[in-house]
């Protein structure tokens, strides 16, 4: 409706009659006196604390210990079949007995039949306990980490940043992003937080230092 486009824009311009014609957007000062980072100590430690606050399961491990820890987590969970992005490193699954199904266009029913999903991430924000997925390396498309009820996410130490302002420059807005802070939750009943609604009800995180 191009008529409406012109109508709305004309109304906007008429409403802004008080704004001087030669004023540019940059002429409206934006004071950015807020902190680029809040000093809250060691980032990985803080990330663990925040994730646990959201009732996520968190482990710290080493590159050598990762495969064993993944195997133990999948066994503890009682999984038989888990999904993984096509490009997830093979050595993550070097120790597990569980069947790992590489995503090559699984349909929704196929994804719904999985006991869980194992992925990496694009970045993690310590202060807010947030993991960001950008559908890039070792993460797969969005549906992969949404439909299975259990998400095991591998976070490398160098992917952790202190706060939100450090995360944004690392992320490409052209990619679809999912920021995850703990398992799905709701506060809709008496504003009491309950973990586990439509998204994965269990989030387990392996931090590899």
């Amino acid at each position, binding site marked *: *409706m191009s008529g*409406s*486009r012109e*109508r*709305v*824009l004309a*109304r*906007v*311009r*008429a*409403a*802004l*009659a008080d704004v001087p014609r030669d*004023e*540019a*957007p940059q002429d*409206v000062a*934006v*004071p*950015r*006196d*807020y*902190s680029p980072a809040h000093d809250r100590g060691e980032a990985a430690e803080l990330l663990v604390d*925040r994730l646990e606050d*959201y009732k996520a399961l968190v482990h710290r491990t080493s590159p050598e210990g990762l495969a064993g820890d993944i195997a133990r987590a999948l066994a503890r969970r009682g999984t038989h079949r888990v999904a993984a992005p096509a490009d997830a490193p093979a050595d993550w699954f070097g120790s597990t007995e569980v069947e790992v199904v590489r995503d090559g266009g699984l349909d*929704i*029913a196929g994804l719904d039949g999985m006991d869980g999903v194992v992925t990496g991430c694009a970045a993690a*924000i310590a202060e*807010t306990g*947030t993991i960001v997925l950008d*559908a890039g390396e070792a993460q797969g*498309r*969005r*549906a992969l980490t949404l439909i299975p009820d259990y998400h095991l996410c591998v976070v490398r130490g160098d992917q952790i940043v202190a706060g*939100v302002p450090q995360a*944004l*420059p690392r992320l490409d*807005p*052209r*990619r*679809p*992003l*999912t*920021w995850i*802070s703990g*398992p*799905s*939750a*709701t*506060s*809709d*009943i*008496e*504003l009491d937080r*309950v973990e*586990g*609604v*439509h*998204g*994965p009800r269990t989030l387990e995180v392996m931090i590899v230092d």
Partner: protein
Amino acid sequence: MSPHRSTGRAPGAQPSSGERAAGHATFMGMPPFPEAAKSAVEDSQMRHNLRLATGTIRGKREAVVSELDDWPDLRQAGKAIKDRTLRHLDTYLEQLEEAVTAAGGTVHWAADADEANEIVTGLVQATGESDVVKVKSMATQEIELNEALAQAGITAYETDLAELIVQLSDDLPSHILVPAIHRNRAEIREIFRDRMASWGVPAPEELSDDPRALAEAARVHLRERFLNTKVAISGANFAVADTGSMVVLESEGNGRMCLTLPQTLISVVGIEKIVPTWSDLEVFLQLLPRSSTGERMNPYTSTWTGVTPGDGPQEFHVVLLDNGRTDVLADTVGRQALRCIRCSACLNTCPVYERTGGHAYGSVYPGPIGAILTPQLRGTASETEASLPYASSLCGACYEVCPVAIDIPEVLVHLREEVVARPGHRAEKAAMGAAGWLLNGEHRLDTAQRAASAARSLVPRRMPGPASAWTDTRDIPEVPEESFRSWWRREGAAEAPEHTGDGGDEDAQEGGRR
């Protein structure tokens, strides 16, 4: 069907045949604030539910806000970014349109609600589908999209837990963030047990009122719907002009389901939702979660830019909605209301909202922000809208907690001037009615005074707006710890003195200060 169902139908009532799709509660024809507030204040269950919920959220918000020593700086930045956007909104709208289009999305413009509903209905019809799933969205509630879709034979399924509760019980939303905040767990269990079956998967026989069990029932009820529906409708918390990205914050994962699994996604976005640049999100992603749910970050935030081949909806439409926003923009005092990021902190802290609940405001935007937004979006010609600027004691707590520093008391005073300047007695009647409602009820005045005493540390040193001329040269008197009325009663007076009131609209507090 009566439009005056301010507290909804009794949970046990059965829908009549055909009512499920056609019957929709609406705010149309709601009585003005004083009348609606009177019946709401008499609903003690609702007041109890509200007090509990707002008390919880206030505590959580305060804890996570006080954790950031640069909160005032973030607030100033948020305010300034929004001011920059609003003063150059035409530039940013065109920039957004270009970026969305370049990323494979389609941009539509809607001057009013009818036009937006027509556009969305047409887009859904073009897919050949008759069911849509919805992410909670204030803009689509404002334009009553579900009702418009129903008339075209399209059923919109709300998927946010609170929206689901409201939809199943044919109720009205009473809070921006938690639309079913007026319902407690026992009522929700009744609603689920009685109504889920007529909308899809029924609730389990032995459903308890444990919030965990209720959340599980919602998961089971909606699961198949998510996995099979081909069209989704959302709003957006932010639309980024320089990249064309949309941002949706949520908690349950219903948003991710709707934004990811369907083939077609339609987002209805108010023209004021724009932020200029991607990096501006660093401010709002800190301000919004802490202000709204009192969390350091909400569980899920999704951002997307146009269409991504092989991932998510392959058809994406944005409907840019005016519907009165340019009228708000034209008012240089009232314009600041468009900074609002819909966090609802002002509702949770407002002593009037806590007592009246959201329905009394006659709009999807209740509480202090609703009291300034609704009359500006819809004009003050009718009694409901004319009474809203009086639905406040001007205590200033809303301004204190607002993450983008909207001076709500200033706009309220400004709108009161506009209302009384109107010829005819309708507006005056509404104005006096609101003051009278507060002053004529002994109990109400008493609670208002106690609220003023409790909030006295929040009383501003200066009055906002035109009253500032008075306070520029005088100090506002301290609100005493105890009001005269309370002292009188404690000292054993047989009867509290009759309060005559002098018609001043700030009497809710001034009474306590005398």
